[in-house]
């Protein structure tokens, strides 16, 4: 199942911590996964989070940020995601 607008949700949370870098990080993560933005499926989100974790800067609390992204996605799409 495609999830429409997921990028906006993730970028919104990321931007709170890393500002303009958020879009770059998402692009890099998708590139690493070899997945296009509109191809993102629910079952890929766990993998996306794992790749995203490696792309985040060390200056921030990455685990906390991933939890925030997961919570935002759950709220937005009523999803049940596995905890990282």
């Amino acid at each position: 199942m495609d999830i429409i607008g997921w990028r906006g949700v993730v970028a919104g949370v990321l931007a709170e911590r890393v500002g303009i870098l958020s879009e770059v990080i998402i692009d890099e993560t998708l590139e690493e996964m070899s997945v296009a933005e509109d191809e993102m499926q629910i079952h890929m989100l766990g993998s996306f989070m794992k790749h995203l974790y490696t792309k985040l800067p060390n200056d921030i609390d990455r685990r906390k940020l991933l939890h925030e992204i997961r919570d935002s996605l759950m709220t937005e799409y009523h999803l049940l995601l596995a905890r990282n």
Partner: protein
Amino acid sequence: MLSVRSKLTIAFSIFFIALFAQFALVYYFSNESAALITQTIKAHEQGNTLTRLAIEGQKLRRYEKEFFIYADNPDRRAKYSGEWNNSYGKLKDGLALLNAPRSIWSQADKERAQAWNESLNAYASGFNKVDVAVNNGFINGTLAANKAIQDAKNKFRVFLKGTATEIDNKVNQARDFSSQVEANLAIIQKYLMALSAAALAVGGVLLLTIPRAIAGPISELTESVIDISKGNIGRPVTVRGGPEVTGLAESVERLRIALKGLMLRMSKLQEERNQRTANTPSNKPKEVA
């Protein structure tokens, strides 16, 4: 932590409340004291008037005694009778003033003055009868004259005792009013000192904290921004302070992280580009045959 705006609002509110409390306190107690001072002056004036009346009353008694002492001496007798009538006239005028429509006297005072007037009339009537009797030779000698006026003299005691008591009352009233004014002034002084001390204490605390709360975080933030502008992007921007400054600090920290991430990616790209350039066949050194 409170914002700078909240701190300033609290500080100014405290000062306004303190100022208003001082104004209300001074206004209320000064008005009350002004009324009390007016009453004190009035009681003093009344006391003075009554004292003058009491003195005239005592003069009457003295002239009456002199009249009787010189009962056998027509010239001296006539002199003291004249003096008596003179004081009597003054007393009547004084009592009439007490009953004037727009006077400073209360209804109770006026009723007392009425009783004194009747007492004076009874005494004057008695004295005039004795005066006529002595002048016509019906009464001879001091003792006989003294005995004849006894009844009228007793009636005059109402005036003499009444005025003496009322003078005491008026003096006591004036003293009480003055004491209340003193008490009011003491209250004003006490509360003004307490309010001023509280305002000074709060002002002192705010004077120490507010400039520090504004200038401290701003100078910390300025240092961080200067560092970033010089390329030192490794140090996180952490500023403690009110929400205004911490909000700005968070934004600067976001910019720093983004800048650092972009710079890392740029160097990585550059490295990759260099690698690719180095690996292109045209750039490889040709093997010597």
